[in-house]
């Protein structure tokens, strides 16, 4: 259902995604892993259509939503943020349901940008979930969160996945990847080195780069 065919993307002449092809498993969640600078965020943006590939193509059905590494909240109330992308007579009910899902219903009328980091990320998830996307892209949704907030966000992701939302996310947290992943895409210097079920990836990575990454020895990519 989500495919990339010979996808390439360069910025300022520097190749960032190099000839990447895959067809994702229908279930997921899909975890895109790889050292810093591997191209994970760029790949998510290509899949979501925020960036145009230089070559190749993406096929991913809509509706889609994306939550960014740093939540982008409007200067409005919590509820108004969830309502913003919604249309139709049931918008309000959907927004309230989404806020209840992430445990923010009591804060509906607070200014969104006064929330704590974890609350802001949960709000961004609620706003994405309220759009009822078929695919939800998450870029390091827990990068700046403490362990408790991370667990709360993971719980929400699990809930959405169980309810049928196709999750495609990046993470730099291997523990989180083990807890959530159905399959893994391992990127290194813009190349797709592995696409395997999560159990296989963590037990027996095929590439030496992935093995080094899992040992914690490959934290960032040397100049691509």
């Amino acid at each position, binding site marked *: 259902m989500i495919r990339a065919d010979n996808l390439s993307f360069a910025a300022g002449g520097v190749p960032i995604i190099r000839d990447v092809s895959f067809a994702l498993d229908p279930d997921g969640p899909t975890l895109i892993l790889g050292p810093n600078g591997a191209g994970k965020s760029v790949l998510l943006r290509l899949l979501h259509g*925020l960036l145009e590939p230089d070559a190749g193509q993406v096929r991913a059905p809509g509706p889609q939503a994306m939550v960014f590494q740093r939540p982008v909240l409007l*200067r409005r109330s919590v509820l108004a943020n969830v309502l913003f992308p919604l249309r139709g007579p049931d918008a309000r009910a959907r927004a309230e349901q989404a806020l209840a899902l992430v445990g923010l219903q009591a804060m509906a009328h607070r200014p969104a940008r006064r929330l704590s980091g974890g609350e802001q990320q949960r709000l961004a998830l609620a706003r994405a979930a309220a759009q009822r996307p078929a695919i939800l892209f998450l870029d390091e949704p827990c990068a700046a969160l403490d362990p408790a907030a991370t667990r709360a966000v993971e719980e929400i992701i699990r809930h959405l996945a169980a309810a049928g939302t196709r999750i495609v996310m990046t993470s730099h947290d291997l523990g989180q990847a083990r807890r959530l992943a159905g399959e893994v895409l391992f990127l290194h210097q813009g190349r797709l080195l592995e696409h395997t079920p999560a159990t296989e990836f963590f037990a027996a990575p095929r590439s030496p780069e992935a093995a080094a990454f899992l040992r914690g020895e490959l934290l960032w990519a040397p100049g691509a």
Partner: protein
Amino acid sequence: MNDLSSAIAQALGMLLHWDAGLLRIVGLSLRVSLTAVGVAALVGLPLGAALAVARFPGRGAVMAVLNALMGLPPVLCGLLVYLLLSRSGPLGAWGLLFTPTAMVVAQAALIMPILAALSCQLLRSLWEEYAEQLRSFGLSRLGAVPTLLWEGRVGLTTVLLAGFGRAAAEVGAVMIVGGNIEGYTRVMTTAIALETSKGDLPLAIALGLVLMLVVFGVNALAMALRGWADRSGH
């Protein structure tokens, strides 16, 4: 020294007794400058917003022209509007020269580039923050403009206040196109200039105090607004 203290005493007397002539001058000043801000905002804010989100060849040149116009001396602006509205000018048939309307036109022309350039700067940083998220919601660049204007409402209000302060305090443009006609086109700044040169200090001092109050008041309002926005998460 005695002259000065008696002039100040007379000025305070005019203020305390709401002197009718003084009130008319202050009233016209506020009316002209507020209308000028409104007119300039109708052009300047959408222009600033469009420049903030649009990508077209020549965008840099438009920005450079706007930035240059921000520093246009008021007398020059007055002269240009004078040439436009004078009997032999292109809009001379409208008979607007030496009317409050001409003063509104001159002040609006003076501050429009300021409003456009400042709002463009403000909305551009908002656009950098919001562009991807708004596109993810399915909004186009131009479709995002109303959202950007609303998200920037606090900053844009301080931009409008700055524009009003500049309009209310300038003297060159309204002097040239208004003519400082008593009871008709005389505003605070032109009256202060004229009365001081005539040696009639009480009215000049009284108007000076009011003008100072207006300018400080606008600044205080802008600061209060920013403080409130910071505290309330806007």
